Structures are given as structure tokens and as C-alpha cells.
């Protein structure tokens, strides 16, 4: 019944505590006692347990992630690196851009709409926290088989949730991915990316300094959301086991977040904050301990001042609550009244809950009683670090090469092509993307289904940024080291295809259980590959997220490193689109095709995965990117060739503006023949269309960069004709677009 205060804890050192129920290991609990020199109070125990969880402390991944720092290429662009809420890069003209991907996988399985919605809400706050105006979002998603019953439950809800929250925030959705694979059944992946922009001088950090400065909590009231296991403590402390009911699902309030954004930006514009932190995972525990440990002194919080939605919350629960749409700012007392005025203007609740002290500890009191007295660093940063066992998984030894019937007669081409482009992974995704606002803010230069999303940053100078997210989980399954590299290279290629120059990287690493040595091997190889490729490409990793325990029973998901690359384009008016704009253009394939079908969609349709991922040719990819950037002015259209191979790329290119094409692939020039020519997913290839008058210029540049350039056809007509076999665009369109409506309406 009584509050478990620091004094009580000191006086009763042997009180039993439910550390195990809270997910702590015996040695972790012992460490806490050692740090404090006594047993923790129940509030302290709550804080440590959640901050030392896998999700918040990165205890299994830390030892690997540090490669991103160690191998980091020299980059002048990096203004804020890993460690803050999101990294910040310089894009020139005084602008800084921040972007990051996060996962919200498990909540989205439990309650698809709200899980996805709050996932968007969380990443947007991370971006806002840096001082930036959020300007766009993307949503890389993974689902179980498209026709599985549970996918029909999960997918529409997740799409509606991403749209419901993002649309209401006024953030254009400019891209993402939708991929189906058996391993995501029971464990869909909802990753969300947000990008924001600010002036250099407006960058904000999560830090609390200046004795006497105030800690202000603003935004939504605190409810019992997401406190999970911590209710154990509440029932312990408040005895009699009748803890009030706590929500099992968090409900997002996008309207509250929208006004929070406007309110925060107005506060930033008047330079009213010293430090700021959003409340995400671990709520106030995280915000107070991180702010304090990044600051100069200590912090004193009066927890009873936190405005509550549910008055029955115990102090432990208030500390743990993950209620959405809240922020915590450090401000000078002299600026309080101005701060409050802005909050009032936007109808945002704001409350002073404490102050920065000249001590070294984080002190939290509840109605005058001291319930937390900890060195904040020990909570925020000195969590356990594990070197989990790693073992190359056995499945790698029993992989079999892909064996496919070769296609050569035109009838078979047509049938195979229609089957491929109507398969859920390749089919048109407008059923999904039409539920997202891509226009709002009026700066969307490119959005789905283009190779990358692109937004204008400055209307006068036409400066813009492009973003692409990519993952090829099947390649990562076959070869996680190269899989990660290939994903990043694909992202870079997508960026360059639209005319932007790759600048920085974020990532979201979705994996199975870190306690499985095989998964841990996949993870460590992935990080090694990603760190290496970033060094080779000269791109800094600015931040990211790790999501472990994505598995159903003993079956882990495919290792899914989702890579996001940010690029800069000096003049967005020069961007290149994917659709053929007119008849009479010459169509070329840049790059060579080979006959490896491993991990391809075509093999997947035949129930096979194959035995080896492509070996990335980094030098060739760099030359290709450089060629794309220099020759871009001569392209009438350009489209990356990846999932679904040339067949899919051609389909998308002709359908975009309903301009057909006649294609002639010369079988004997392609290793693997026509089948490979159309369906292999060899990396490093781009489909371009060039006005005949510019062919010589493009050829000269392709020679300069030593990139193979194959003429494969000409645009025009109302059909896609491949080696004499004609598919009317209407038929092609039907096959490409019907799939989602049939599955999900």
C-alpha cells in the first residue's frame, strides 16, 4: 500500500522484488543494486527494467552497431550522428535534413490499425524533436502470404492506420514497400520513415542543462498505455492485487500530434527551448534520464504534477506510461510565459514538472516523497551489453540452385509475364497508395510508384531531397552480408535514377530472436555488410532502429534490413520519372543481366529460393550512379530494374502514361536467355528512354563510365510487344492492377 520510497528501500534491503517478471536477468538486478548501493525502489526498478530492455538499450545489438561509427566514412554532411533521436545531414544552402526509420511490428500484429498509426506517430515525433518540420513519410511493410486469412485481417488495418495517422498529420506519403512472404505470417513488419527539414541553426538536441531551468511536459495527458509488465509493480506496491485495468493497445490521436507539431515548431521558431525530447518507448523514464544524462547536472521531477488521463495510475506506471503525443522540453524560467502562451494558442496542455539541478542525480518525488534517486547515465546508457552467441545457421548448407523451365516461345513469355506482374509482390499497389495523401504540403515532386520519393525543400532555389527504402530479404536470407550491401546499392540506384545524389543512410534491422545464434549470425553479418558498404560508398549511417524477436514460434522472419537512403537534388525540375512520356524514344538497358535467379520473384513463384545471392559489383554500381547523375538531362524516363526483373520494369514503364513499347531481346547475348533477360533480378541495371537526337551523348557518357548500354527497343503503340509477342496495354493493366482489389476488397 505504502509508497516504496528511497528511505523504505534503504531500510528494507531484503524486500522481494519482481525483477524477473519485469524481464530483468539476475545479474542485471544485481548490477542495479550495486549501482545504487541498495535495492532499487519499485519506481527505480521500473525505470531500469524498461530502459535496460532490448528495445531501449540495444543490449544485443550494441556491440555490432558500433561498426557504423568505427567504419564511418569521412562525411562533411553529417551534422548530428547516431545517438540522438535522429541524425541530421547538411544538404546545402543552410538547410539540414533529418530522417529515420522505426519499426512498430508487434503492436501492429495485435491491433493493426492502431499499431501502424502509433508507429507513424512515434517516428514523426523523433523527427520533430530534432527541431525539424516533418515533410514526408514512407512505409516499408511486410506481410504473410497475400491470400492468407490473417493477412486479410492485418493488411487493410495497417494500411488504414498508416493512412489515417499520416493523412491527418498532413504528411505526404511518398513511398514505401509492400512485400509478402510466408515468414511474415504472424509477424508483419511495419516500418515507418519520416523526413524533416530545418535550418542549421535550428537543430535541437536532447539535453538538459542550466541549473534552475524548467522541465516542461507538454502534449497529451498521461494514461496507462503500454505499461505492460510494470503493472506487476503497481499491484505489488498498491497491494491487494486489484490494479486497475490497463489498456493492452495504444490508441493514437493524430489530431493531438498535429497541433503538437505546430505548437512545437512555433516554440522552436522563437528559440524557447534548451533541449527537447519526445516521449516514446519507456515514456518519462526515458525522457528524463536521457535529457539529464546528456546535460550538465541533475534533475528533480515532481511526478504528481504530471497531468493524468487515468487518475488511478501509480508512480511506477506514470514513469513507464507510453502514452502517445507527448514531448518534454527544458526551458529557461524567463521564457516560460511565452512558452505557455504558444501552448495555449494551440490548446496543448503544458505543465512544469521539475527543474534542472546542480546535483548529479535524477531525483523523482511523488507528493514530496523521494521515490527515485539515480545517476541518470546508469539508466539511460549503462545498460547491459551482450555478446550473444553466433553460429552460421544450418539451412545455408542445404540450399539448392534454382531450376526453372527455360522460356523461349512467345506464348510462354506472355503467360509468364502476366503471371509475374499480377503476383502480389509485383502487382500494382495503388489500392494501397491511393489511401495515402501524396499531395499535401504541395512539395511532392515524386511519390509512389516512382523509384524514389522526392520533395522540394526550397521553392526559390528548387533544392530538393529524394528518399528510397529497400530490402531484399531473400538475398539476406541466402547471404546476409551481401544482402545488406545489395539493399543499400539498390537504394542508391533508385535515388540516382530519379536524378538525386546519395548522401546518407538510415536503417531498420528486423530480425528474429537474438537468443538464436543463427539469427544473431544473420544480424552480425548484416551489420558488417552495411557498415562496409557505407564505407565503400562514402555514405554515413545517421541512425536507425533494431527490431528483434520477429518470429512465430521457432520460425524467424527472413532477415529484413530495410535501408533508407537520402539523396539531394539541386534542381527538382530536372528529376527523371519512370513512365515513358511519348512514342518514338529509344529504349536501353544499362548494365548486364546474368542468369542467377536465386531470391527472385520468378523463382518464388515456382516455389524456390535458390542458393546464392548476387555478388555486388560495387565499382560498377558507383560508375552506374555517376552515369545516371551526369546523363540524367538526356533521359526521357528512367526506371530501376529490380524486383520482377526487366519484365516488371517494362510493365511499369509502359503503363504509367499508357505509352507502349516494342522490345527485342537477343537471346544469345543474354546468359540464361530470354528467361533471364526478362525475369532475372541482376542488380546494377536501369531501364532508360532517350530521344534519338541524344543517343550519342548518352553513349559517350556510358563509355566514359564504362557502363554497358544495350538498345532493347522503341516506345510507341498501345501494346507491350516483346520479341514479337504483343500484349495490349489494357490487358497488361488489368493483370497488373486487379490483384489487390481482388484480394482485399
Amino acid at each position, binding site marked *: 500500500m505504502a509508497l516504496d520510497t528511497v528511505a523504505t528501500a534503504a531500510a528494507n534491503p531484503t524486500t522481494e522484488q519482481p525483477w524477473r517478471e519485469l524481464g530483468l536477468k539476475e545479474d542485471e538486478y544485481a548490477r542495479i543494486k550495486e549501482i545504487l548501493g541498495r535495492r532499487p525502489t519499485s519506481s527505480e526498478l521500473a525505470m531500469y527494467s524498461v530502459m535496460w530492455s532490448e528495445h531501449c538499450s540495444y543490449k544485443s545489438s550494441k556491440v555490432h552497431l558500433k561498426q557504423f561509427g568505427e567504419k564511418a566514412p569521412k562525411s562533411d554532411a553529417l551534422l548530428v550522428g547516431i545517438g540522438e533521436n535522429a541524425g541530421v545531414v547538411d544538404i546545402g544552402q543552410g538547410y539540414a535534413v533529418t530522417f529515420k526509420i522505426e519499426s512498430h511490428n508487434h503492436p501492429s500484429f495485435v*491491433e493493426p490499425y492502431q499499431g501502424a498509426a502509433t508507429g507513424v506517430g512515434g517516428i514523426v515525433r523523433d523527427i520533430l524533436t530534432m527541431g525539424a518540420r516533418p515533410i514526408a513519410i514512407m512505409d516499408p511493410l511486410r506481410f504473410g502470404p497475400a491470400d492468407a486469412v490473417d493477412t486479410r485481417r492485418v493488411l487493410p488495418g495497417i494500411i488504414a492506420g498508416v493512412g489515417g495517422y499520416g493523412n491527418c498529420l498532413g504528411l505526404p506519403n511518398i513511398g514505401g514497400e509492400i512485400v509478402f512472404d510466408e515468414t511474415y505470417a504472424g509477424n508483419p513488419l511495419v516500418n515507418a520513415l519520416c523526413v524533416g527539414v530545418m535550418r542549421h541553426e535550428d537543430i535541437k538536441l536532447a539535453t538538459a542543462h542550466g541549473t534552475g531551468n524548467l522541465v516542461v511536459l507538454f502534449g497529451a495527458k498521461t*494514461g*496507462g*498505455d503500454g505499461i505492460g509488465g510494470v503493472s506487476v509493480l503497481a499491484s505489488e506496491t498498491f497491494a491487494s492485487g486489484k490494479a486497475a*485495468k490497463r*489498456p493492452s*493497445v495504444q490508441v493514437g490521436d493524430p489530431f493531438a500530434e498535429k497541433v503538437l507539431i505546430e505548437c512545437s515548431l512555433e516554440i522552436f521558431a522563437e528559440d524557447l527551448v534548451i533541449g527537447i525530447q519526445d516521449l516514446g518507448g519507456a515514456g518519462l523514464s526515458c525522457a528524463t534520464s536521457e535529457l539529464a544524462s546528456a546535460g550538465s547536472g541533475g534533475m528533480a521531477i515532481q511526478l504528481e504534477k504530471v497531468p493524468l488521463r487515468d487518475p488511478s495510475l501509480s508512480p511506477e506506471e506514470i514513469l513507464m506510461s507510453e502514452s502517445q503525443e507527448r514531448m518534454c522540453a527544458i526551458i529557461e524560467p524567463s521564457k516560460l510565459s511565452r512558452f505557455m502562451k504558444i501552448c495555449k494558442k494551440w490548446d496543448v496542455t503544458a505543465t512544469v514538472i521539475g527543474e534542472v539541478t546542480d546535483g548529479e542525480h535524477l531525483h523523482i518525488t511523488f507528493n514530496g516523497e523521494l521515490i527515485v534517486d539515480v545517476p541518470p547515465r546508469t539508466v539511460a546508457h549503462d545498460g547491459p551489453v551482450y555478446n550473444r552467441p553466433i553460429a552460421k545457421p544450418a539451412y545455408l548448407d542445404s540450399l539448392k540452385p534454382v531450376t526453372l523451365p527455360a522460356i523461349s516461345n512467345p506464348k510462354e513469355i506472355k503467360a509468364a509475364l502476366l503471371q509475374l506482374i499480377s503476383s502480389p509482390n509485383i502487382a500494382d499497389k495503388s489500392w494501397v497508395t491511393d489511401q495515402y495523401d501524396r499531395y499535401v504540403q504541395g512539395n511532392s515532386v515524386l511519390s509512389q510508384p516512382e523509384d524514389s520519393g522526392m520533395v522540394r525543400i526550397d521553392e526559390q532555389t528548387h533544392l530538393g531531397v529524394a528518399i528510397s527504402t529497400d530490402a531484399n530479404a531473400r538475398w539476406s536470407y541466402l547471404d546476409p552480408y551481401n544482402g545488406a550491401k545489395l539493399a543499400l546499392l539498390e537504394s542508391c540506384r533508385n535515388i540516382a535514377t530519379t536524378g538525386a545524389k546519395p548522401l546518407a543512410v538510415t536503417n531498420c534491422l528486423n530480425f528474429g530472436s537474438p537468443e538464436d545464434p543463427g539469427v544473431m549470425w544473420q544480424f552480425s553479418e548484416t551489420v558488417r555488410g552495411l557498415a562496409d558498404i557505407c564505407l565503400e560508398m562514402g555514405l554515413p549511417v545517421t541512425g536507425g532502429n533494431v527490431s528483434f524477436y520477429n518470429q512465430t514460434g521457432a520460425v524467424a522472419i527472413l532477415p529484413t534490413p530495410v535501408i533508407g537512403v537520402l539523396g539531394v537534388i539541386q534542381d527538382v525540375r530536372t528529376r527523371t520519372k519512370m513512365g515513358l512520356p511519348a512514342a518514338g524514344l529509344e529504349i536501353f538497358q544499362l548494365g548486364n543481366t546474368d542468369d542467377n535467379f536465386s531470391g527472385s520473384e520468378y523463382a518464388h513463384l515456382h516455389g524456390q529460393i535458390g542458393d546464392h545471392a548476387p555478388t555486388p559489383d560495387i565499382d560498377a554500381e558507383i560508375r552506374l550512379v555517376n552515369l545516371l547523375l551526369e546523363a540524367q538531362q538526356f533521359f526521357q524516363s528512367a526506371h530501376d530494374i529490380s524486383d520482377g526483373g526487366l519484365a516488371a520494369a517494362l510493365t511499369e514503364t509502359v503503363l504509367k502514361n499508357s505509352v507502349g513499347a516494342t522490345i527485342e531481346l537477343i537471346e544469345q547475348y543474354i546468359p540464361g536467355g530470354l528467361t533471364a533477360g526478362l525475369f532475372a533480378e541482376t542488380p546494377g541495371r536501369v531501364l532508360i528512354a532517350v530521344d534519338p537526337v541524344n543517343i550519342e551523348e548518352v553513349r559517350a557518357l556510358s563509355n566514359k563510365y564504362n557502363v554497358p548500354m544495350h538498345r532493347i527497343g522503341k516506345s510507341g503503340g498501345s501494346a507491350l510487344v516483346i520479341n514479337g509477342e504483343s500484349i495490349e496495354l489494357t490487358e497488361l493493366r488489368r493483370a497488373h492492377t486487379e490483384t489487390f482489389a481482388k484480394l482485399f476488397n
Partner: protein
Amino acid sequence: MATIIVEVMLKPEILDPQGQAVASALPRLGFTFAKSVRQGKRFEIIVDGEPTAAQLAEVENAAEKLLSNPVIETYVVRVEK
């Protein structure tokens, strides 16, 4: 012909942004009666003849499976008099 009503409300512990928006709009319009407002859904289901016990059990079942989301909502089934 009878009307069966299914009322679906968010569980009390679940955030109700819509109810909150109404609760804060009311006083701005000079209405001060509400201590709190929650917003839910109401389904009017027309059935043939007088509802039988078996039919009501079916409706309960449908309310559980389709009309409400048991993760965040509760429901009540009643027959309109």
C-alpha cells in the same frame, strides 16, 4: 420485424480522442453540463419477426466477431422496444 441494437463503446481505459474533442467543444459553445464524453457506435439491425433467443445469440456472436474490436471495445446487444 424488430430492431436489434448493438452498442459498441471503447473500453474505459482506452483513449477516446473523438469523445475528448466533443467534451472540449461543448464548453466553447456554452454547454457546461458534461463532466466527460465518450463516443461509440450504434448499429440498428432489422430482423424479420420477433427476435428469437437463438437469433440474439447469433447477434452476440456477430457483435463479438465483426461489429466490435474486442481488443479495444466492448458491446451490448439489446432489443429495441
